[in-house]
């Protein structure tokens, strides 16, 4: 039995190459059917994301080398690209290493942004496509099912997905750690920078109730307000309206500070010292740093947010070792299952051989008992079958158990020697 993965990803291949070899979602079913046919009815799955293109294949008789070269040729033919063009970036794994690779991918331990959750959905889609196209064999099914279980364990038992890793989502997280419920809170967005727009969008998606859009140009303020059903406010109103804002996002191109401690002190007084979260993503900064020293004002500038992103990424990296340990355990379990699967035909052959011995000896004995009626002969045949089955029941159960926990070939060889049976090819 040969299980392989062949592919390229963001670690070793540039985006120009990855996009040439990517499969559009609607093209995957057709590609799977063609791949299945070209690899001599092998079980196959295609995982195609913006960061990786991978082909998983399993065949009961073909060698791993044949499967890999077949998959590589398929990629070349399907995308009309010579194999030499992507050979350098290709990687391939066989057997248990294939499982280890998929488990790392599904658990987001191999992602560009470690711990991102999207990849598990993409792996799931790859599996569903293979299943729907009826090109997933027993091993491919088991491989992906195990990958989901491992990924779930990694996500739930480690902090690999803890903390957001984009500036806008970090800002939303921070807002949620200050306010009990973002619904009903008011956001004041000053300026119209792209990050400010993204942060505002994330906050609105999380249910922020009111948006006040300020800009030196009232037209721009109106445009920003219209994008999120907010209220445009003239820039001159800033000081008078500041107290209404629970969250302030500033992103103007002003050369100096536009907000000072005095304005925040006034605002705090007017809002009964309820906390304010200030996100200053302007460069140069809009908010005087001394504002951070005021009680109940939490000021974050671009550097601070990026520091939080870096700290979250660090924490995710630190969790990688725990995740890897879970993956290794998963690989071990999957390998044992594979080994057990590999020796299943051998066990069946052994049972057949024992049955052949029974039949031979039985017929020899029956030939010496000519007086027995056909009914009695059948009874004796049935009796011998029952005896052999009863004798073998416990050893076979034990054998399967031993195969799962030890080297299956050694165990099987030992049993065959014990019973004086031939080694099957």
């Amino acid at each position, binding site marked *: 039995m040969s299980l392989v993965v062949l592919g390229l990803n963001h670690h070793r291949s540039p985006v120009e190459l990855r996009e040439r070899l990517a499969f559009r979602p609607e093209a995957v079913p057709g590609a799977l059917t063609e791949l299945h046919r070209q690899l001599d009815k092998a079980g196959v799955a295609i995982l195609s994301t913006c960061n990786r293109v991978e082909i998983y294949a399993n065949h009961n008789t073909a060698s791993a080398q044949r499967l890999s070269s077949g998959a590589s040729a398929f990629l070349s033919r399907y995308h009309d690209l010579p194999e030499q063009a992507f050979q350098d970036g290709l990687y391939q794994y066989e057997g248990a290493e294939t499982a280890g690779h998929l488990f790392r991918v599904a658990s987001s331990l191999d992602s560009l942004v470690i711990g991102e959750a999207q990849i598990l959905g993409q792996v799931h889609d790859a599996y569903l496509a293979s299943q729907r196209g009826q090109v997933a064999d027993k091993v491919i099914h088991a491989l992906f099912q195990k990958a989901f279980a491992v990924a779930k364990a990694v996500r739930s038992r480690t902090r690999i997905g803890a903390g957001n890793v984009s500036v806008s989502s970090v800002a939303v997280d921070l807002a*949620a750690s*200050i306010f009990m419920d973002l619904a009903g809170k008011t956001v004041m967005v000053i300026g119209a920078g792209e990050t400010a727009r993204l942060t505002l969008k994330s906050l609105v998606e999380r249910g922020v109730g009111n948006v006040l859009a300020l800009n030196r140009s009232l037209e721009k303020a109106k445009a920003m307000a219209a994008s999120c059903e907010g209220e445009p406010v003239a820039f001159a109103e800033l000081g008078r309206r500041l107290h209404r804002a629970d969250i302030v996002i500033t992103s103007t191109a002003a050369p100096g500070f536009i907000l000072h401690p005095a304005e925040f002190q006034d605002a705090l007084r007017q809002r*009964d010292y309820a906390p304010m979260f200030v996100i200053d993503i302007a460069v140069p900064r809009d908010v005087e740093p001394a504002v*951070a020293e005021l009680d*109940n004002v939490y000021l974050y500038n671009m550097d601070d947010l990026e520091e939080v992103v870096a700290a979250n990424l660090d924490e995710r990296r630190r969790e990688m070792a725990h995740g890897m340990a879970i993956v290794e355990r998963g690989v071990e379990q999957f390998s044992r299952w594979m080994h057990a699967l590999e020796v299943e035909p051998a066990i069946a052959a052994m049972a057949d051989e024992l049955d052949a011995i029974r039949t031979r000896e039985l017929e020899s004995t029956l030939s010496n008992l000519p007086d027995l009626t056909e009914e009695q002969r059948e009874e004796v045949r049935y009796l011998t079958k029952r005896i052999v089955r009863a004798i073998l029941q416990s050893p076979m159960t034990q054998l399967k158990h031993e195969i799962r926990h030890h080297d299956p070939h050694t165990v099987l060889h030992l049993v065959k020697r014990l019973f004086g049976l031939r080694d099957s090819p």
Partner: protein
Amino acid sequence: MFSGRPRVLFAAERGNDMLTAMDIAFYAGAALYAGAALISLYYLREANRRALTLSVGFVMAGALCLVATFALRWAGVKRLPLTTVADVLSLLTVLTSILMLWLIRKENVRPLLCFYLPPLAAICLANATIARPDLHEAPRALPGLPLTVHVGLAFLAYGLFYLAGMTSMAYVYQSRRLKQHRTTGLFQRLPSLEELDHTLFRAVKLGYPLFLITLIFGALWARVDPDLLGAHWWLAPKVVLSFAMAAFYALAFHIRRVGRFRGPKLAYAVFFGFALFLTSYLVLALTGLRSYNFWGSF
């Protein structure tokens, strides 16, 4: 006032060290609280929400064990056991636990168990090791209903002030981490600042009136039985401290209510206020200055 030791068969009286059902319930209660605290700390490490649910289960089981201890003891001595250290600590733990479960009924504030439970577990363990012999002593009888109500309400108020104090600690921690931009690890596992502020205020809002009623019942008790506390009971250090505590919480409660004083400053004040009063009570208790007839003894 003290009518002698009632006729109760305790294991010690029978001349053996056999554990009674009451002992077993008492120890089981302490062990369950210790378990609950450890599980809540495990949440801090693994951020596993199920740990908090399990911790709540342990607290409930522990509280039931302590209630069983209390009931067995009450049935044994035929009077409300409220005067020995072991009884006081057990009852205080149970009442605080009930209030705590009420405060953390919303799932997002449940991580506060990590702050509430370790000191409670430490009290339970200290009770089980140091104060345990009290369980085999008959308690003094409390003279009259006003005093019984006074003690019960005082326990409830202390429980709430304790919970407010620990919540304020969590608030200060979260607020400092936010100010310092250190927002990984433990920070991510605790409730939002606004949630902490609401929980803190809720505890003080309920604790303060209870404490006031406690003081009123105490004063009633002193009027009903003037010989019991002496002529100058209102000048006793414990009474003065209680009134100071009532004034402090009234001030904090009022200022928070009108919105002039909230956030880290209020949290610091509630925490240090509680710590100061607790220390003062302990000093009074350990030095014997707790007597109501303090000035009469000079």
